[in-house]
């Protein structure tokens, strides 16, 4: 009898589940770079507003956008955090599932820094140095040759005579995209390898040739000098502690919170900081985005208030909480705030 009762109650739980009550908390997911910022905002939002604290998930930029595009309704998320811009394929997927009104909100910028263990040698890098050290093939005497550089001093005599070992973000990270475009590609062009790739490319038209050459520039050496890290910055930090002569790639905010363990490298002579990134002097940076499902505004309580609070001066302004944590404020914040207030939907990608 008790067995029967239990089974019936179990079925009742399942049945009740189908008619679950309306969701009253916000659901946010996406980039692990934006995650710490989003949790800070969520915490302050829960404390100072009458709404429950939003639930913030990580998982990566791409995964977050995919979840956003799953459809409209209470069991889909409201906001996707992203450290790279939304792709046309995401927008198509969204449209297919009825998510037609997406708001794109740029919350600020993130610097990407090279750092070594705190008592290691000083590094003053340029994109060209990094490409020559880590690229798969480099231009040598007007021809492409497999990268044979063993020590940093082989690449640039001014760099320390240490074996080349770099921990770079894995391909699933949004950070890798910036590293590819702002460092490897720049270095590839400066080195001349890009032109050689372009000349050797077999693409149908100029556009295809350019794509092929770029993809070739993004290839890193596979002999162990360049190591992809698929985990978080904490993993990169642990690897650096085990290999004190290595160099790692971090987000600016992660570095700012671990200045006692890391020594930052300059890039093209500029030391990364919130100021140099926002002034544009420091070259390796990227915008951070929030993608909001407008169809949920007015349906899920607190959504509008949350995004307005997120872009308020108290949070992302020059003196805001997130800026103190390491986010680089957006100089065009006022325009973003106005767009959020007016609930402007993003247009097609240019």
């Amino acid at each position, binding site marked *: 009898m008790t067995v029967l009762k239990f089974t019936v109650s179990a079925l009742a*739980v399942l049945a009740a589940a189908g008619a679950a009550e309306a969701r009253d908390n916000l659901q946010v997911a996406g980039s692990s770079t934006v995650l710490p910022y989003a949790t800070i905002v969520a915490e302050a939002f829960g404390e100072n507003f009458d709404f429950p604290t939003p639930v913030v998930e990580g998982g990566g930029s791409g995964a977050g956008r995919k979840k956003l595009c799953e459809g409209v309704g209470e069991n889909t998320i409201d906001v996707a955090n992203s450290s790279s811009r939304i792709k046309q394929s995401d927008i198509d997927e969204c449209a297919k599932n009825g998510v037609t009104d997406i708001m794109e909100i740029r919350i600020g910028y993130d610097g990407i820094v090279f750092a070594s263990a705190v008592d290691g040698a000083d590094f003053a890098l340029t994109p060209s140095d990094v490409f020559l050290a880590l690229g798969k093939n480099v231009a040598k005497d007007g021809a492409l040759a497999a990268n044979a550089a063993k020590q940093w001093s082989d690449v640039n005599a001014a760099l320390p005579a240490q074996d080349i070992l770099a921990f770079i973000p894995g391909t699933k990270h949004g950070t890798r995209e910036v590293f590819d475009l702002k460092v490897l590609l720049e270095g590839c062009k400066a080195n001349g390898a890009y032109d050689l790739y372009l000349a050797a490319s077999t693409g149908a038209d100029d556009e295809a040739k350019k794509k092929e050459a770029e993809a070739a520039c993004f290839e890193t050496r596979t002999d162990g000098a360049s190591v992809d890290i698929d985990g978080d910055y904490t993993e990169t930090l642990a690897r650096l502690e085990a290999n004190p002569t290595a160099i790692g790639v971090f987000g600016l905010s992660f570095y700012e919170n671990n200045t006692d363990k890391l020594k930052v490298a300059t890039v093209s002579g500029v030391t990364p900081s919130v100021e140099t990134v926002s002034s544009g002097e420091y070259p390796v940076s990227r915008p951070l985005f929030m993608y909001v499902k407008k169809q949920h505004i007015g349906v899920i309580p607190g959504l509008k208030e949350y995004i307005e609070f997120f872009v308020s001066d108290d949070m992302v302004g020059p003196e805001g909480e997130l800026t103190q944590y390491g986010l680089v404020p957006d100089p065009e914040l006022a325009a973003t705030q106005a767009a959020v207030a007016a609930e402007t939907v993003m247009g097609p990608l240019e």
Partner: protein
Amino acid sequence: MSDATGHVTSLLAPDARTKARNAAERRFRMIGLSAVGLGLLALLVLLSSVLGNGLSAFQQTSVALTIPLDEKKLDKSGKRDPAAMAKVTTVGYGKLIQEALQDMLDQAGVDTGGLKPKELMGLLSKEAAADLRERVLADPALVGTTQTFEAMANGRVDGYFKGRVTLESAKRDANISPEQLELAQRMADAGLIVTSFNWKFLTNPDASELRPESAGLGVAILGSAYMMVIVLVLSLPIGVAASIYLEELAPKNRWTDLIEINIANLAAVPSIVFGILALALFINFLGLPQSAPVVGGLVLTLMTLPTIIIATRASLKSVPQGVRDAALGVGASKMQAIFHHVLPLAMPGILTGTILGLARALGESAPLLLIGMVAFVKDYPAAPPEGFFDPASALPVQVYSWTQRADPAFAERASGAIIVLMLFLLTMNAVAIILRRRFERRW
């Protein structure tokens, strides 16, 4: 003594073959001993690293402040209307705390070393203002009185007293300066900063990167408990019913063989597979909420069922056939024989299997990744049954998300969370052993 072939064998001096056999035995003993030793060593390394990193999470330094809750600042209207009082944000409460801190330093005659008010506030957790505000809003009668208030010290200051942060590392640290740490030392010498057991680590919800010192396991423990309740309520009756049918009632044929093989296989399926199933079935198809203990509980039920069925069938099998025959012989029906005689005798084994299954489910994190439980959840879930549908975290998942945070104080908390999780597992396993020792009957 000599035999026909002329070999002399003494009973006192072993011959070569005996020696070789004895040596083989000694070698095997050594190998066995070193295997055990290796296992113990691994356990020792694990325990010492977890305990070494995590025990300090159970200690927290804090400052006891005496705060006059000024009516003019907190409730201008004087009507004690919670809605109007809520307009004073944490910034307003922060100022009160700052004044109280400065007063306290002046009274105790501690030299502030020329630190600015903002740097003074840097010694305290950012949680303090939010805590105070919550307390006042919960009890508006406090306004106008003077209250003592325990403010947690900032994570870096806390780390300094635990040896994680040194004056040397503070020089390079953007978040704390050596001057601030020196002031903290003077305050500790004057008895203003005290270290005590950190109950908040067990009760507080998660916290953001700005205030690692206030992060706790409250939501995670509740979420895990809710899931375990669901797992127990669902998997025990279903598992026992299935086992009784298969073991006692079902005909032995190709179909039951097939089911048996499938159950054994299911028990070995990697848990992440159940997570994928749950995402597709419970969230996308049935429309259950994300991050909710009900979904987590259902997944873990699916995962635990095979374990429970296998354990239950084994203990049903171990009840001698004579018990059933005797019951049937005195006129009991098959049902009566099972429920009055076989099941009670098999119960200790079933409970042991269930508890071990639950322990495995408690430590499981992979399937929860896919259903959105690896998230920042700050609000406590409501009381059940509504609470089953509220977002919550879980213990193993909390460990996972804390190890990913940038602030080093979270590494300490992650190890602390592992200790809590291990204590729960140890308790459950101990209960299982006690049940087995106490009630198991051997034939």
